[in-house]
């Protein structure tokens, strides 16, 4: 459903208001020898003061960036010193947190100021000052509706749904401006529903006007997102969680959840990223309702299974009430809102690399498959040890405003300080092990040296062997225990390798099933692999089957991918299924896709993400990008505009398994 505001933002016209910020704050701060926290608050004050209020025609929810860049707080020289002394994760600023927006919205910043430290208080003053300037602008433009809202929020607690949404927008805007990134929305339908309910009961809103308001609010996530840091455009972590149970096990899905699914479908924008918590007791109609959004082609919602995730988090040591309240970080990592400070993406382990080392060092001397598998596990253990011992002194730049909105002292960490490690290329490794088990040790039809030579030679002189390994050997995704059990054992081995290890912040290490961008990076670190994968070919994303594996279809894939025990490997990372968009042609088939999702959940799958893709469109879009500006695809934990991606990410989407009718 197109509206003037939607078209305006989607076409990027609002970017005309942007200016370059030429302040060299790092040099200035360095000269004054300011402390990191002083720099953070001073930068926020300066940036917000330099902002120019802009209120767009027709918008109900305002605030957007007019400064293109956020100057760093430290000079390059200083960063070198910092990196010499500390372990720095990614950009060094806080990320992947789920702040307590609810507290800010319900109590208002003036009230929170009483509890804030001096830096937090200064941040609040700067935010309120910009809010006042926005209010003056609204009055000047005759937008008394906006002026009235800004007179209340975020200074005081919100009294209506609209005020609550506007308050959220300002808090979110300020958190990003402070330099934090990949800030997630959390369980939005839980904390926002009381405002909606009250307004509906009071007759202030109808379902229809509420939906329009939510659509306007959702657009706000797309105003500044191209300025946010990320590996590719779209990788910005504005994840929203809907549905799921509360701490008493009661289903939280409500009218707002439904309206959010609809708003996302109507807007057809890549933010916010919609996640849905479900369980075996979720009614079938809800899967159909959610599949309407899948059908739209945004790659939303991503499902996670309460039946699996909550007990697994509890068994890792999370308090039951916190586990029940889980949400996702930027992509799919399970984190706890408000109190959690897990670094859920600290590193990634490559299963195929571990296998590659064992292949070269140990295969020749192995008497049995079991011997060889033990060597692979030893390599996984050694890699886990390297990863875990590498991070000794983790430091984040302190963020005083983030601290205001967290229910813990985020300068020091949180109630949970666990580190998550992704696991890349599980299908490539499991398929390779199945080849070695069957042909080298059982049939003895391929010699050890022969296999090694062919792999090292990228199969250049062994076309028949390549054919056999690539197209005629067991592959993960066919509901074949022969190889499915190997994948399960690898996951188990990964979890074992992290068992009992403590990180430098006192937390544990969590094994995961995600890959993030490592499905390309790790694939380039090794040559060909025994599953018939040639040198340079990427792995599947996250917890998926191999790109070239012949699989029977989505039913067998969900059977294979729900066999492992996720209770000890619950950092997150979904199975991804791509369906040809024609599958969703009629209402009946949409319902049937919903049934497949329901079955995945019943079978004990942990996380699932589905895409509706049209290969013809993707190929044409590579040739004529100008015709496909709004074409959306899912990458690894986020959706993106296809034409804005680098070619290697485009090609990977095209190479994935697509199930048609």
């Amino acid at each position, binding site marked *: 459903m197109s509206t003037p505001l939607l078209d305006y933002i989607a076409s990027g016209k609002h970017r005309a208001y942007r200016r370059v910020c030429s302040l060299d704050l790092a040099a200035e701060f360095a000269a004054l020898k300011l402390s990191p926290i002083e720099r953070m608050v001073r930068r926020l004050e300066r940036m917000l003061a330099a902002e120019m209020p802009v209120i767009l025609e027709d918008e109900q929810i305002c605030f957007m960036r007019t400064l293109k860049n956020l100057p760093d707080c430290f000079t390059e020289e200083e960063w070198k010193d910092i990196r010499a002394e500390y372990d720095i994760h990614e950009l060094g600023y806080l990320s992947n947190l789920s702040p307590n927006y609810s507290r800010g919205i319900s109590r208002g910043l003036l009230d929170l100021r009483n509890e804030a430290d001096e830096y937090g208080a200064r941040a609040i003053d700067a935010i309120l000052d910009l809010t006042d300037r926005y209010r003056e602008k609204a009055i000047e433009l005759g937008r008394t509706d906006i002026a009235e809202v800004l007179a209340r929020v975020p200074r005081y607690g919100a009294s209506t749904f609209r005020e609550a949404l506007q308050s959220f927008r300002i808090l979110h805007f300020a958190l990003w401006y402070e330099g934090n990134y990949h800030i997630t929305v959390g369980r939005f339908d839980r904390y926002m529903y009381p405002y909606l309910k009250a307004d509906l009961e009071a007759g202030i809103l109808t379902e229809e006007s509420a939906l329009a308001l939510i659509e306007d609010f959702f657009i706000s996530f797309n105003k500044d997102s191209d300025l946010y840091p990320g590996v590719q455009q779209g990788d910005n972590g504005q994840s929203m969680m809907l549905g799921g149970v509360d701490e008493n096990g009661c289903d939280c899905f409500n009218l707002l959840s439904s309206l959010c699914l609809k708003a996302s479908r109507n807007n057809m924008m890549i933010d916010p990223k919609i996640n849905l918590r479900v369980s075996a007791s979720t009614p079938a109609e809800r899967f159909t309702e959610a599949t309407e959004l899948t059908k739209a082609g945004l790659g939303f919602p991503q499902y996670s299974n309460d039946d699996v995730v909550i007990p697994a988090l509890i068994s890792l040591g999370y308090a039951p009430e916190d586990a029940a309240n889980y949400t996702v970080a930027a992509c799919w990592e399970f984190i706890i809102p408000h109190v959690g400070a897990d670094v859920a993406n600290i590193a990634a382990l490559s299963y195929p690399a571990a296998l590659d080392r064992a292949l070269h060092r140990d295969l020749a001397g192995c008497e049995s498959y079991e011997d060889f598998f033990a060597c692979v596990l030893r390599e996984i253990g050694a890699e886990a040890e390297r990863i875990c011992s590498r991070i000794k002194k983790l430091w984040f730049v302190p963020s005083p405003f983030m601290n205001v909105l967290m229910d813990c002292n985020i300068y020091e960490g949180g109630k949970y300080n666990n580190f998550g490690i992704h696991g890349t290329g599980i299908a490539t490794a499991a398929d390779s092990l199945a080849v070695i088990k069957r042909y080298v040790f059982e049939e003895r039809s391929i010699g050890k040296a022969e296999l090694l030579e062919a792999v090292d030679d990228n199969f250049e002189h062994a*076309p*028949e062997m390549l*054919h056999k390994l690539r197209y005629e050997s067991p592959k993960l995704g066919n509901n074949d225990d022969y190889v499915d059990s190997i994948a399960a054992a690898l996951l188990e081995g990964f979890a074992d390798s992290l068992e009992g290890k403590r990180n430098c912040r006192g937390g544990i290490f969590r094994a995961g099933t995600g890959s993030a961008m490592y499905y390309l990076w790790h694939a380039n670190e090794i040559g060909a692999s025994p599953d018939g994968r040639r040198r340079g070919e990427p792995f599947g994303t996250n917890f998926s089957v191999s790109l070239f594996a012949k699989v029977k279809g989505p039913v067998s894939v969900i059977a294979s991918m729900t066999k492992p025990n996720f209770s000890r490997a619950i950092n997150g990372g979904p199975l991804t299924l791509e369906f040809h968009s024609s599958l969703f042609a009629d209402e009946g088939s949409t319902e049937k896709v919903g*049934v497949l999702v329901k*079955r995945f959940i*019943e079978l004990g799958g942990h996380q699932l993400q589905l895409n509706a893709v049209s290969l013809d469109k993707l190929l044409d879009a590579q040739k004529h990008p100008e015709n496909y500006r709004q074409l959306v695809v899912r990458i690894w934990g986020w959706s993106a505009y296809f034409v804005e991606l680098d070619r290697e990410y485009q090609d990977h989407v095209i190479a994935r398994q697509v*199930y048609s009718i």
Partner: protein
Amino acid sequence: MTGVIFDIKEMAVHDGPGIRTTVFFKGCPLRCRWCHNPEGLSALPQIFYKKVRCIGCGSCQVACDHPECALLGRCIHACPENCLEAVGREVDAATLAGELLASAEVMGGLFGGFTFSGGEPLQQSDFILELAPRLRPHHLCAETSGYASGDVFARLLDVLDFVIFDLKLAEPAAHRMYTGVDNAPILANLQTLKASGKPHLIRTPLVPEITDTEENLAAIGALAGESEWEKLPFNALYGAKYEMLGMAPSEIK
């Protein structure tokens, strides 16, 4: 006994109620000019050659003793690009039932059932009669052109819960011209189906200027009567698979 099938498709969503698994039987007495499943025409196993993927490496020109490669004179198990693929395999009822039931088991109580498609499943009716009881208690459906003797049709109808009946052209001459066979047995079997009270769906592919004419649709509408009738949009890519089989679309005229 054995049958010849060319595909098993999981999550077939347009082949009857619920999430189904469809098995495609090889061999069809009709030669519809718009056929988009040419691999279902011949009753024998064939080789698919995906020319666009061929890099001309010559790896397939290697001596081998695979029976399936004999008729081609090239080895289909040596291609690094998987350009050559056997289409169709002979399978016995117990083995096929085992494969099919595995997908039903995955879906548990949410499984819709099995659909026999093709090709023309009626061509292998004896095999299906042996297979069907092994698939019970699941819901069984056939997607058929209805072209078979009344006896064969009635016996198969007996073991099915649902029939998708393809009705292409009502006028006998046009039917002969565009499908190569007479439609008298089809129309007779349609009456049997309607009289049986068995749940069914009549389907008409909308082929431009052949089946989608006003007269034809009116006549089929009349034949369908009270029955549920679905018109299928034409698959414009129908020609793509012919070259892979070394056939020209014109060969089926």
